[in-house]
């Protein structure tokens, strides 16, 4: 699938970095480094994004209309842009969470839950 068409297919599973980026923006608007730190913390260190991977993911999400860019305030660094989850992005994230819930229910029903 070409990068430009990655989100063209509705209800397709999100990649792990994209999922965590959307999750971090579902809490509040954030700038690049804030997203990077939150993704690492919420994934318990499993997803560690570099600046290049982060902005590649942000560009794809912007192109797909799942997030939007906020205009920096007068007392903010113009280079440090903030990003916000759009209604479409929230719907996509909710859909992904539902898919995950269904998978957990299915695994639980088949006694496939990981032993703690």
């Amino acid at each position: 699938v070409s990068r430009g068409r990655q989100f063209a297919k509705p209800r397709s599973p999100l990649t792990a970095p994209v999922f965590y980026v959307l999750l971090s923006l579902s809490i509040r608007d954030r700038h690049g480094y804030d997203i990077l730190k939150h993704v690492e913390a919420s994934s318990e260190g499993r997803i560690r994004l570099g600046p290049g991977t982060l902005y590649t993911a942000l560009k794809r999400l912007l192109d797909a209309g799942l997030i939007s860019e906020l205009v920096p305030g007068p007392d903010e660094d113009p280079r440090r842009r903030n990003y916000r989850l759009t209604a479409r992005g929230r719907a996509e994230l909710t859909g992904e969470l539902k898919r995950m819930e269904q998978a957990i229910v299915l695994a639980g029903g088949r006694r496939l839950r990981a032993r703690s």
Partner: protein
Amino acid sequence: MTARWADRLYGSVVALYPWRFRKEYGEEMKLVFNDMVIDPEVSRKRVWLSVIRDIANLTGGGLGLGALFGALVVLIWFVGRSDIVPLDTTLGLGLIALLFVGAGFTGAWRSGTIAGGIWVGFVAGLVSAVTVPGDYLLFRNFPFYDLMSLVFTMATSAAIAMLFVGAGAALPDSSRHRHRIRRSIGAFVGAWRQDPELSP
């Protein structure tokens, strides 16, 4: 390494990204990198590991794809040379040219940039250069007078191959490139018409 040197080094990593992406996000990427470098919670090792991962992500798909096209070029070359299948030289060279066009096209289509297509074609070219030592080792054929003629032939072949790669890379967005070329020619012709010193 000081933070300033790290920033400079990262600046050259940012230069690897497509021009349009760099223009839009380059400064922000450098800012995020600087945040990582000065963050006491993030070790230098982790900073550079994330940069290495970025570079791998940037070139990873292209490397595999380029190697695949390069391997196909090598395969056609050796099938033709070994006479396993009777392959006309013109047909063989035509197939190889098509593979370079394909490498450029696929790379550009996947990455959304011409640079992505050129990168895949470049890797394919590097892999296909195996044919020179391979031809000597397998068929005892070394059709070069000296080192200079080898370098000249390799450079000419690379330039011709990159022409095919470039043509392939321009195909996914051909209407926009056609418009650009027409606009450039228009500007050039306009300059000739308007400037009496440039007129023949």
